[in-house]
């Protein structure tokens, strides 16, 4: 357990900051902790014994061996390979990747849109402020599930049927079944692209003075061109009822990301607004007297300070987004809850095991994100005063 050294000590003893690390704990403190420890241990032991009895009485056994058996079902959208002959355990990984993809995209959307809405709401233009306000109120006051369903059908309404697809040069197609684009035939494409990304990262770090478009853009473009030349392409084409071949982004993913991202943006914007409000006016006046433009003072002075009070609620929203991907089950996005807590649970009948696994995966992912955000938070709190 890492000590949040930056935080003021809770009981008022440690007035110096950071608190003295090697203070001898008082007898009272130790006694309280031992008492608390005993109470918690007792509670857990008592509950565990009851649960053991109850399981035995109800003939319920807990056994995870079913994870190795053949799944037998199809997953309509996957990032890696999947065949119905794969195991339940592998389905957890495949569905988990889908969850992570949706969550990452939604987090990006929520943050950017949240910032836009907050700045609009704080702007001097009454129309922008009013629009932002109305949007935020509308978004944050209706259940998220309804919004996801709304976006799904809005997206489906707008897109044309498979036989009337919007086509781009015979390689990219857009219709109600999804966005189809060419896929590389060889894994070397991925490796080349990965190398390009690494090179771009390294160059932009090593040569910070050169413009980013050059240091990052050139290797990325080069790698893409090279990778494309290395491999052939699998082009999507209409076969039978649907397009086949190539890569496909399903409308379910788009709707889920829009639904969760836009919904959360409303909440994020409220927190950004409150945090900006918490930065003293003096800071802004000081920035202006230094000759900074309003935009630069917002970017260089206000936002960095607002970040300090913003991070804890922002972390909450990010964790919320990760968990909200479970709403994808309502609109047929194959995420972890749908695949595992519905299909697998139903097929294997192992309710306790599957739910434990689903909770465990979410807990693990969220703890990782939470730990990363807390680290960042501590660094900020330590610097600021």
């Amino acid at each position, binding site marked *: 357990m890492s000590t949040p050294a930056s935080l003021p000590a809770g009981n008022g003893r440690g007035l110096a900051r950071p608190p003295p690390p090697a203070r001898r704990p008082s007898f009272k403190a130790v006694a309280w902790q031992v008492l608390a420890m005993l109470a918690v241990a007792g509670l857990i032991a008592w509950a565990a014994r009851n649960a053991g009895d109850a399981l035995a*009485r*109800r*003939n*319920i056994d807990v056994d995870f061996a079913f994870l190795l058996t053949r799944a*037998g*079902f*199809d997953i*309509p959208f996957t990032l890696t390979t999947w065949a*119905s002959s794969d195991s339940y355990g592998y389905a957890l990984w495949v569905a988990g990747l889908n969850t992570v993809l949706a969550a990452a995209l939604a987090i990006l959307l929520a943050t950017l849109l949240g910032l836009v809405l907050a700045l609009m709401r704080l702007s001097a233009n009454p129309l922008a402020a009013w629009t932002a306000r109305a949007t935020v109120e509308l978004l944050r006051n209706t259940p998220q599930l309804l919004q996801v*369903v709304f976006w*799904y*059908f809005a997206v*489906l*309404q707008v897109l044309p*049927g*498979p036989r009337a697809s919007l086509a781009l040069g015979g390689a990219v197609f857009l219709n*109600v*079944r999804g966005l189809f684009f060419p896929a590389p035939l060889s894994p070397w494409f991925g490796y080349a692209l990965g190398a390009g990304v690494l090179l771009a990262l390294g160059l932009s770090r090593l040569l910070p003075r050169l413009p980013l478009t050059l240091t990052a853009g050139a290797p990325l473009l080069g790698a893409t061109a090279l990778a494309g030349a290395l491999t052939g392409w699998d082009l999507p084409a209409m*076969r*039978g*009822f*649907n397009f*086949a071949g190539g890569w496909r982004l399903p*409308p*379910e993913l788009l709707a889920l990301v829009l639904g969760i991202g836009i919904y959360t943006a409303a909440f994020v914007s409220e927190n950004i607004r409150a945090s900006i409000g918490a930065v003293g006016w003096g800071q802004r006046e000081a920035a202006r007297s230094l000759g900074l433009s309003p935009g630069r003072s917002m970017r260089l002075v206000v936002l960095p300070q607002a970040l300090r009070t913003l991070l804890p609620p922002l972390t909450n929203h990010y964790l919320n987004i990760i968990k909200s991907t479970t709403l994808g*089950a*309502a*609109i*047929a996005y*194959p995420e972890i809850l*749908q695949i595992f*807590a*519905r*299909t697998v*649970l*139903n*097929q*294997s*009948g*192992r*309710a*306790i095991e599957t739910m434990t696994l689903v909770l465990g995966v979410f807990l693990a992912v969220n703890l990782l994100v939470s730990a990363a955000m807390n680290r960042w938070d501590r660094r900020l709190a330590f610097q600021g005063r």
Partner: protein
Amino acid sequence: MKFGNRVRFWVGAAVAMLAAGTVQAQTAIPVPGPTVTAIKARGALACGVDTGIPGFAFQDSKGAWHGFDVAYCRALAAAVLGDPEKVRYVPTTTPARFTVLQAGEIEVLIRDSTMTLTRSVQLHLDEVATNFYAGQGFLVSTKLGVSKITELNGATICTLTGATLELNIADFARTNGTKIGTLLFEKSDEAVAAMESGRCDGYTDDTGSLAAVRSTLKVPADWVVLEGVISKEPLGLHIRSGDVTWRNIVFWVDAALKTAEEAGVTKSNAEDMAKNSKDPLVKRLLGAEGGFGAMLGLNNDWTLQAIKAAGNYGEIYDEFFGPKALDLARGQNKLWSQGGLHYALPFR
């Protein structure tokens, strides 16, 4: 120091609310074992039903439960307690249904559920009787120009998650060397709406539900139910394994409803026939002879009460799936004597 006071209020309120919440929560659990004792002690049968599905279980605008499965709950309650109203309906969701039954919160699960080997062996549950023979069918757009299920190669089908539907499709595709894509939704409303907007080529579900779905479409004529089914779905009455008495009661109440149809006993003439019929089968069925109720630990008028409460099997089917309701042909759900599958064991 006003804020100090407020803190004390917050804390006090929290404690009060927690206490208020838990006080009324303490009641006695039904001891596993004689299920009937538990039902009688409670004065009501805890019957697990679907949270809402046309035909099988739904609530009217007054909040009262109706449906094919609900009629079975009523018949059971009438047989055990003499009053069809003494049912506590426990709506169960798909993922929770078997767990709720295992945990002893309901005595019987009548929820358009299929028993499989895994469920029976791993979950220690029994499907005591089958009250509805269904199969998985397909509803597709007429524009596809498809007339048989085997022609669906390459199609995308919308369906529901948490049931055996997707697995059946995968099995079917594997057997026939075809590829059918599935999109899994939580609720049929979304699945059907997605199908109507062109996301899928069709919808698949139990034949019982397909009829209900087609009647809700904007232009029903644009959609057709394909001939044939790809699976067996015997929907039935489920209990925990172990209590033989309770198993017998559930089994024979179902048999009584089907035998009543064979013998021409209906909701309205049951009372009269119990008194006046000369037919030995009817006399035994309605408890005038034989003392079957006593053998099961019930009153001898148990079947009479059940039939008066729900009607015979044919009456129940007609009420919810007949021409005036969802208009689903009886097919396999006819009695064995008319070419169907319902074959009740003899009442003797």
